[in-house]
């Protein structure tokens, strides 16, 4: 459009001013990308790590288990449920587990803790943090033998080594006390004291026998999905597919409300900060545009005198601000790109600052800060830049249209 060309040339009449404003917008883009991207990466990391600590992104549980867990509540025919879930798009894995509380004893001492009954064939270091953190020995080979994998702190307290025996006592499905023996096959160390001192892995079929469960019973099915952002949607689809009053499907936001709370608060804080800075840049843009309008008072006066409508002038300035936005974004991309690539592939390593123990409320924190920008975030940032710039341009554009021709000719 003709207007576009004119607007473009107007901008470049004042090269320096346009460039500086463009740079400040570009800078704002870099800021937004950095903080949104590192935030998203960090949150995604925390969510994914926490998902593989046992419950998955989406958890299928017996109804009411989340509120009051007890070993008499269980899922049945889990094999079939698992197959159906695995067939759903977006699902990376579905793992059947039994979790419960027990007392663990050796000749020296007794401690209370939790067990997770697993099928080694279904598990892998990617989907199970405890397996990933093994430091000695290995996971028991079958799902029905007498192996056990314990945490390093528990091994210490109970004076256990690979091959030594452990007796665990728990309550079965009938409410009776049962005990079983197991020999240490492996030891893990997550760095989280509560986990290392209180959790063990047991073969799931042995647990079923001990607890007098049926062959396919379990207390949870952990669903790992490809993109954690779709957790709630996945929960809804599974809920719909499995329509069973005995079952409850929960997303990680529900099973780990504390984590959800922390993330939300941090993200909100992040948005507010970015908003403030956005306002700042908008102020700068406003300043630039307004100045440029004010100094072209005579020019606009002349244009109106020869017949240009106020509305056209308005649109002209608006288009100028649009161009400014585009310039700013281009500069922003130029500034941000190398920084982004660095963060994406290398990242900032804060492990020196954090030290040994990576736990925060039982959740591991990755000391490496990297970046990951989702499509939606990119769109959001671009939209934000355009909106702010346009908004900033509104008042100057309006002023441009309002100049009475005679007045402007007098102005100097």
């Amino acid at each position, binding site marked *: 459009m003709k207007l576009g060309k004119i607007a473009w040339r107007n901008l470049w009449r004042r090269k320096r001013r346009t460039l500086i404003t463009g740079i400040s917008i570009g800078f704002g883009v870099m800021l937004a990308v950095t903080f949104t991207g590192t935030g998203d990466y960090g949150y995604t990391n925390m969510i994914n790590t926490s998902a593989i600590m046992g419950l998955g992104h989406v958890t299928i549980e017996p109804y009411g288990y989340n509120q009051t867990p007890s070993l008499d509540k269980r899922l049945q025919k889990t094999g079939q449920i698992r197959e159906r879930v695995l067939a759903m798009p977006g699902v990376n894995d579905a793992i059947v587990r039994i979790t419960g*509380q*027990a*007392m663990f*004893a*050796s*000749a*020296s*001492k*007794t*401690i*209370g*803790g939790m067990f997770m009954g697993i099928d080694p064939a279904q598990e892998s270091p990617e989907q199970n943090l405890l397996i990933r953190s093994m430091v000695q020995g290995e996971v028991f080979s079958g799902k029905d033998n*007498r192996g056990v994998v314990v945490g390093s702190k528990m091994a210490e307290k109970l004076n256990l080594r690979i091959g*030594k*025996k452990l*007796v665990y*006592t*728990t*309550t079965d499905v009938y*409410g*009776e*006390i*049962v*005990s*079983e*023996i197991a020999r240490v096959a492996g030891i893990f160390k997550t760095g989280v004291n509560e986990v290392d001192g*209180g959790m063990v892995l047991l073969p799931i079929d042995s647990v079923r026998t001990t607890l007098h469960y049926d062959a396919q019973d379990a207390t949870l099915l952990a669903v790992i999905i490809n993109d954690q952002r779709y957790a709630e949607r996945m929960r809804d689809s599974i809920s719909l597919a499995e329509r069973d009053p005995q079952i409850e499907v929960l997303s990680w936001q529900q099973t780990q409300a504390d984590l959800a709370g922390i993330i939300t608060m941090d993200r909100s804080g992040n948005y507010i900060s970015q908003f403030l800075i956005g306002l700042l840049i908008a102020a700068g843009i406003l300043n630039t545009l307004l100045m440029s309008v004010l100094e072209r008072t005579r020019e606009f006066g002349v244009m109106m005198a020869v017949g240009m409508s106020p509305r056209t002038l308005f649109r002209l300035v608006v288009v100028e601000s649009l161009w400014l936005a585009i310039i700013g974004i281009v500069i922003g991309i130029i500034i941000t790109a190398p920084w982004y690539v660095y963060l994406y592939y290398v990242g900032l390593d804060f492990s020196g600052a954090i030290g040994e123990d990576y736990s925060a409320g039982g959740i591991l924190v990755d000391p490496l800060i990297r970046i990951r920008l989702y499509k939606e975030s990119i769109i959001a940032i671009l939209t934000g830049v355009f909106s702010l710039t346009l908004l900033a341009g509104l008042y100057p554009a309006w002023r441009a249209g309002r100049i009475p021709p005679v007045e402007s000719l007098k102005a100097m």
Partner: protein
Amino acid sequence: MRSIPIYLTILSVIISFSYPVSLSFPQQDNAVRKRAKEILREVDDMWRGTSSHTILTMQVKTSHYTRTIRLEGWSKGKEKTLVRILTPLKEKGTATLKSGNNIYSYLPRTDRTIRLTSGMMMGSWMGSHFTNDDLVKESRMEEDYDPTVSFEGRRNNQDVIEFTLIPKPDAAVVWGKVVLTVLTEDYIPLIQYYYDEDMNIARTITFNKIKQMAGRPRPTVMRVVPADKLNEYTELIYEKIEMDIKLSDAFFSLSHLKRK
């Protein structure tokens, strides 16, 4: 979670700590084993009888406290036991009922009966050096261990037989092995050692003061000493033992638990 010191009383272990015994028959392994098991059962019945009634005092000395309580207990077969505290006054009336795999405790102070859960099993029983789990496991010693004779002959001017019990691979016991020495005559136990898996002694039980009670000589004082705290002990002193008395099943019911 920390270990939870909870009391649980099961009389069977007090009355009849299972004394597995086997005759020494050289070379005939299978026969020996079979015989040992038969004798084990016989001795078990000897101690437990079809039913029993005991009164005893338990004294516990630890580095923090010394306490003495007086108990009265009944048992019927292997599955039913009822124990009640007589003194001190503060705990009088506290009772525990074991019926099959279920264990209940009545607490007079709060007038509540609770059912024991797995979390309570590993705690010390009544502040003593026994654990609740000890008391439950006791009645299963025959199923959980393989007995062999490790020594027979003269020791300290006495004719003794020494048995070594190795836990079966599937048995849910924490010990590495148990070694029991008895007098050849009447199979009266003298001393029992519990070893951990590294074959270090974890605790020792000694039996003393043999007296004639309920028709045969029995040790009336039993002392448990933990290996890591040699100045501590738990001592059981039997005052009265009655065997094969008439006890109904209703006697071992929840309602009866509450009676003072």
